[in-house]
């Protein structure tokens, strides 16, 4: 009799992997001493850790290593955010994720008139190298991986991070983490774009090129479906539009002559975990397989690691209700479970109070504890891709995959991703889905539990200290006074010259930061070259 597929998988995939990547325990057993196999491989199926990776990118998945617990946080000031970071790290969080305020995200210093009322509201303000130093005070840059949700100003934040590493004597090669740097989805769904589409893509590609060459442990982009889903898309649209953006970035990299096998290894993705447990699980599995096919079919990529879709997940913020916010703990738990059953590499769980305000430290802790309970108590980590082979899940996975594939082909027909970002096709599709979802809520066919439109919503549990704005203005005034303004000017002229020449701007940005230019000054210099985005919706 032929060897079963499980035995084949065990011999060819699992055993060689475990030899170099031991599992967390010698064996996994239930309370009844039933030993759990590493996975199940039925019929002629493939196992986890082998192409097309529908079943996960690693043979052992969470038997080997748990996902990274990475809570997104930032507010008020670098000092207060640093305190929240250390609070979360002390409670077992395993990676950092920085939320920046809107002025920082769009490229305005805290003392810019356009920043008025926005400083420190939805994230931490960072205008100078000193700010970043304070943000990561007592946090070893070479030992904690750092994720930064920053897009328009991603090149500037990477320059700041590199300059900080140099200041602290940490080689930039040692920096670990991810920068979002996904500008296309800003135009589609998130709204922090600063420059027109073309130059924005050039800047994003500068970061990818720079990190691929100089930051070997850093992911220079996180191609994000999260915000596309938050803006109202369906699960299929989330997969299709995210992977379509991925195609656009690879095309940019290819046009610049970068080695796609190298770039591919550095890409990461970011998805939403929404309400429908099984469709979400199917979505994650489908996205992985479809990306594997795309990298082969469209880009002739061969390197297996370069073709694996690695992703972060965040539970769906727009599913949270302001009414009876404690119910959100249960929503977050089910959503987080879908991400784990779908094979995520890292996870953020939302705070229960986030329909009301930023989370308090107590609710941020509860959100982290939710992940820890799933990881350490529920047992869902002990068999890789535990739902693999389940007819319902496999069928739904295949259908999400083919519907997303079809939608990507529709984008091709309409001139490709960039054309469909510019002509509003993608936005139009998302808005239509958002409308249908709202109608379903309003007509009672999809009513969230515990929502009574007539009932009072609770008070906001968290408020940002508004005096921070004036303090930051004073600090920046002092900073500007104490620096060599001729050196700043010279460094900014160099940024401008590199941009105009079409060179990679990254080295000039690092030098500008080291000469005490601010984020806002650099962003403005780039806008003088590239122009400003205008929302002509």
């Amino acid at each position, binding site marked *: 009799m032929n060897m079963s597929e499980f035995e084949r998988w065990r011999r060819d995939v699992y055993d060689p992997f475990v030899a170099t990547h031991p599992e967390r325990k010698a064996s996994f057993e239930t309370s009844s001493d039933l030993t759990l196999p590493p996975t199940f491989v039925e019929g002629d199926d493939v196992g986890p850790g082998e192409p097309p990776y529908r079943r996960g990118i690693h043979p052992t998945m969470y038997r080997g290593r748990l996902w990274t617990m990475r809570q997104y946080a930032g507010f008020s000031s670098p000092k207060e955010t640093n305190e929240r970071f250390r609070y979360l790290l002390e409670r077992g969080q395993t990676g950092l994720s920085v939320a920046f305020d*809107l002025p920082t995200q769009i490229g305005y210093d805290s003392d810019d008139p356009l920043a008025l009322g926005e400083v420190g509201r939805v994230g931490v303000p960072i205008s100078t190298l000193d700010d970043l130093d304070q943000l990561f005070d007592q946090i070893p840059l070479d030992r904690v991986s750092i994720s930064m949700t920053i897009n328009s100003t991603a090149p500037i934040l990477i320059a700041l991070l590199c300059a900080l590493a140099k200041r602290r004597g940490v080689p930039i090669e040692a920096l670990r983490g991810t920068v979002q740097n996904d500008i296309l989805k800003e135009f589609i769904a998130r709204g922090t774009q600063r420059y027109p589409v073309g130059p924005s893509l050039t800047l994003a590609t500068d970061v990818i090129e720079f990190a691929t060459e100089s930051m070997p442990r850093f992911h220079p982009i996180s191609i994000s479906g999260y915000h596309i889903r938050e803006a109202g898309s369906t699960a299929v649209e989330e997969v299709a539009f995210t992977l379509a953006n991925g195609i656009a970035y690879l095309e940019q990299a290819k046009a610049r002559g970068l080695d796609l096998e190298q770039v591919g290894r550095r890409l990461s993705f970011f998805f939403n975990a929404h309400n429908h447990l099984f469709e979400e699980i199917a979505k994650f599995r489908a996205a992985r397989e479809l990306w594997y096919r795309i990298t082969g079919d469209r880009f002739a990529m061969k390197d297996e690691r370069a073709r694996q879709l690695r992703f972060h997940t965040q539970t769906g913020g727009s599913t949270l209700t302001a*009414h009876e916010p404690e119910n959100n703990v249960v929503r977050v738990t089910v959503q987080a479970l879908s991400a784990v059953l779908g094979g995520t590499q890292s996870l953020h769980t939302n705070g229960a109070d986030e329909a009301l305000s930023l989370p308090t430290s107590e609710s941020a802790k509860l959100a982290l504890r939710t992940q820890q309970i799933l990881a350490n108590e529920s047992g869902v980590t002990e068999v890789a891709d535990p739902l693999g082979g389940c007819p319902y899940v496999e069928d739904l996975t295949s259908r999400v995959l083919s519907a997303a594939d079809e939608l990507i082909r529709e984008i091709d027909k309409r001139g490709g991703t960039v054309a469909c970002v510019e002509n509003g096709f993608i936005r139009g599709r998302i*808005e239509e889905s958002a409308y249908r979802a709202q109608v379903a809520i309003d007509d009672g066919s999809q009513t969230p539990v515990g929502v009574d439109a007539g009932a009072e919503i609770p008070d906001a549990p968290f408020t940002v200290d508004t005096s921070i704005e004036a303090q930051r203005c004073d600090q920046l005034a002092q900073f500007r006074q104490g620096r060599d303004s001729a050196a700043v000017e010279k460094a900014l002229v160099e940024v401008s010259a590199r941009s105009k020449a079409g060179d990679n701007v990254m080295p000039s940005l690092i030098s500008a930061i080291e000469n005490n230019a601010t984020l806002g000054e650099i962003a403005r210099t780039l806008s003088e070259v590239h122009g400003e985005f205008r929302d002509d919706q």
Partner: protein
Amino acid sequence: MTSDRSQSPIRVLLAKPGLDGHDRGIRLVLRVLRDAGMEVIYTGLRATPGEIIRAALDEDVEAIGLSSLSGAHDQHFLEVSRLLAEQGASDVLLFCGGIIPKADVPRLKEAGFDGVFPPGTPLDAIVQFLKDRLRPSSESESP
């Protein structure tokens, strides 16, 4: 002026002041107001209070709806209300939505925001609010 308009469609300006990019909500409102027969102008992202007032006066609207989910509503919404008064146009109806803490609602009402719509508001409630306030007489004619 309002009486001349009783037979004409309600004209509304929707705006996103500040740097907030969350426009799912305001775009839904845009759509339902248009579906309800209103004439709606939308500023797009990052309109300054000055630009909002100029657009409102140029377009001769009867109502201005503002949205913010970034916590900067106090700054921007109150400035719109102040500039409107400065232009002698306080008869323009103000309403707003987004993530607005309950504690801030009285301050906004005092500044003239008669409608404050938090997350979870059915879209119909906003349509009804505008009809009730701007076309009260036509109410009995609707089926």
